[in-house]
């Protein structure tokens, strides 16, 4: 009951946050974003046609009228139609978000799970050869551009210069076999690039925990290494790890992965968002910004609740 009350209270206090984020974003969109008018006009437009388009885009409305309209859209979840494609924004998001989730989730999960395992091993052998080897690998992963990693995996696994088993592009998923066929190479690229960053971060957390008195006591008591790492170290290091993972979720859901989607020809939300930013497609941007803000508030609440679950000493007030 306390948890529910806490969640509701946080939800209410999240409203100013959403308002603040949407307001600042909207100011940026209106005053600093691209002017869509001149992308929509024909080759030989007249001033009257330009004025017509500006009016249809709502550019001639006062700022606060437009912002009020945005808030109404946020409440009703009706963002109208994309200025570029003419497709209903809600349809675009419901079509592309699941694709991005299916695309990035395996890499996200594997990238974090493997990183935690590697960080535990590195932390346990801190300063030794294994630790240095893992950290060197992490630095290599962090140092190589994501683009190079993508192209490298494509060449190795998907081209006639490599084993040519997997597709370079596409997303024709009708079965588990199809899914594995299309998701494998993108997943490997995501894992490769995320492993370095995640491992370094988690190792720092684990090492800090390893130096605590209770771990030293457990070691002195003769607790086996695996049990020590998972029960005494990982559990107590879980809060920063969970924080990092949880706050990555809104970005995974909404942003997808632009480079992965572009290079693998996958119709996800990352590409849609990127195109909307670069072309000033405000209906899509408004929806994405609003959804991201709301998701962050929900994530914030979920994270707090998880703290309580993991560490009963945490009180939700």
């Amino acid at each position, binding site marked *: 009951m306390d948890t529910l009350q806490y969640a509701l209270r946080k939800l209410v206090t999240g409203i100013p946050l959403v308002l603040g984020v949407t307001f600042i974003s909207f100011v940026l969109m209106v005053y600093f974003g*691209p*002017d*869509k*008018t*001149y*992308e*929509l*006009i*024909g*080759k*030989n*437009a*007249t*001033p009257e*046609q*330009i004025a*017509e*388009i500006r009016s*249809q885009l709502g550019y001639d409305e006062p700022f606060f009228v437009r912002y009020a309209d945005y808030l109404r859209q946020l409440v009703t979840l009706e963002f109208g*139609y994309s200025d*570029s*494609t*003419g*497709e*209903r924004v809600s*349809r675009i998001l419901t*079509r592309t978000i699941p694709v991005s989730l299916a695309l990035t989730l*395996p890499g996200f999960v594997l990238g974090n799970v493997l990183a935690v395992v590697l960080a535990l091993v590195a932390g346990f052998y801190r300063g030794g050869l294994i630790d240095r080897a893992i950290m060197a690998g992490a630095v290599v992963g962090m140092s190589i551009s994501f683009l190079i990693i993508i*192209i490298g995996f*494509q060449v190795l696994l998907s*081209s006639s*210069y490599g084993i*040519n*088993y*997997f*597709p*370079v*592009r*596409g*997303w*024709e998923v*009708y079965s*588990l*076999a*199809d899914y*594995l*066929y299309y998701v*494998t190479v993108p997943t490997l690229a995501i894992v490769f690039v995320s492993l370095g960053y995640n491992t370094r971060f988690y190792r720092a957390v684990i090492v800090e925990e390893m130096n605590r008195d209770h771990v030293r006591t457990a070691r002195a008591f003769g607790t086996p290494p695996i049990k020590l790492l998972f029960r005494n170290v990982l559990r107590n290091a879980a809060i920063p790890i969970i924080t990092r993972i949880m706050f990555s979720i809104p970005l995974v859901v909404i942003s997808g992965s632009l480079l992965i*989607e*572009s*290079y*693998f*020809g996958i*119709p996800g939300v990352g*590409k*849609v968002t990127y*195109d909307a930013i*670069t*072309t*000033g497609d405000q209906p899509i941007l408004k929806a994405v910004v609003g959804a991201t803000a709301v998701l962050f508030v929900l994530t914030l609440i979920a994270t707090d609740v998880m703290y309580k679950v993991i560490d009963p000493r945490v009180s939700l007030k």
Partner: protein
Amino acid sequence: MLNRNPRTLGAVAASIAIALLAGCGGGGQPQTNADGTPLKVYRHSMDGAPVNLDPVQSAVVYSNFVVLNAYDTLYSYKYLARPYELKPNLAKGMPEVSEDGLTYTIHLKEGSGFIDDPAFPDGKGREVVAQDFVYSIKRHFDPKNRSQGAWLWQGRIVGLDQWKDDGADYSQDVEGLKALDDHSIQIKLVKPYPQLTYTLAMGFSGIVAQEAVEKYGRELSIHPVGSGPYKVERFSTAKAVLVPNPNFRQEPVDLAAEGFDPAVHGDYGLDAIDGKAPPFVDRLEIDFITETASRWASFTSDKEVQFTSVPVEQIDSVLGSKQPVTVSDAWAKRYHWKSGVEAGFIYTYFNMDKPYFGYNDDPAIEAKNKALRCAMRDAFSWAERNERFYSGIGTVFPGIIAPVVPEFDPSLSEASVTQHMEKAKQQLRDAGWTPETLPELTYGYSSAVFYRQVFEQFRGFMNQLGFPLAKIQGRTFATFGDFNKAIKTSQLDIGGLGWGLDYPDAENTLQLFYGPNRTPGSNNPNYANPEFDALFEQASTMQPGPERTELYRKMNEMVIDDCVAITGMSRNKVYLWHKNVVGVPDREILGGFWLKYVDVKTGGSEE
């Protein structure tokens, strides 16, 4: 026995790699037809993606490409004839034109149908009739459709502009745009418009059904309901999947009439389609791939896209020679290839609105400005631009009449496209310009590494001429829309631009310098030469012929002599496609029309 299908192999490898399920069943789309014959799939690639498939908003080449396959047009171009030649498409014949050139009567073929779609009663596509054409053109003049093609007919068709001003009520007739009966159209013009028939072969004139517009509204842009050879089954920014329209008219291909030349087209296997009715493939997939590395990997994997233009970074490894363009034996053995000059050109314009650079009330200053512009043009090296950014295979030509149009003059002096640095410096000195008095000029470009490099090369030439570097300022724009806004509101002094021809008639490029088309129209330099304008108006009502060509060429020379722009070059593209594909690709004037004729050999490996 091991199945060598890459999809299955990939799935198996993936399954092992991630220790998931053993023996996952293969899925995917069916690879055979209902009768068991192999499905014929042609997988095309393009270097950009369409955003909107509504004919009224099909200005971008990528949109136009798909629109021409989903929607029918009255006219199209002969598949293989070059120079490009119009031919009837949905129209029975070429238009019947009155003696005064003002009334066009066009008869439609009977029995051509829209795709089956829930927009129609019982989901059955009905026959295309003349009223559909009238409705489709009217849509361009309905402000809520944000038409990008209205300019083609603006001020040309009797009563159409007035119809818009009166509120765009579709129940109201337009005097100059009528369906005489179900299969006859009459168009009355305000004044002769010889390019009218060309406009009826553009995606903008694709014929839509009113029922579909009423059902899908703005989402017609992603849900095309047309009567073209294909039906769009699926569309995203990554890919379009099209299947044949079963209601499309059955018209056997007459290769001879399409301009087949055995010496040019003999190796492409086109005889296989002669006498048969298109479309020939069971599925047409178009991948939109902007990333060249990804497109190249997909093409050379030999199991995905079957067509690509050769990316600049691969040109040196693919070409055997640049003049003339040939591909090396190894690539020619592996793939079909073709090269061709684009239907368009690139140029750098000077904004004549600027009194320190263009027109000036003081004739002496204006003459001095002209000397400056001419010196800048003469200091520019097209040869280096071509070599550095276009692999040295572009076609440099003087003026604004591109090599692809019949009015092109190959004998015109190339002095205006040849670098004369010493002459340019002398011109500056003679006109009294010094590094101190030279104006500070702003060069605009879209924010991308390529355009930045192009700007720096331009600035380098000007620096050699005598401009201090600080006096040629670059101004970047995050999007093309913002760049276009700066041009259309006359903010820039100089800008690099490209123009894709809408039809193979030099009028389409000459109008870029016609005074009344000044910004926000297409005359970006804001060139205003009464003599040019008078010739343009005179030529605009003339039918093609030597007399009109003479006028076109005079106008071309005016643009060169007045140093309004540094122009020009048509880029050359090299295309590769798999040997099991039967077809001759073209993305220029013919554009998407050629996909109607594409076929794929099945059974056995590629040749």
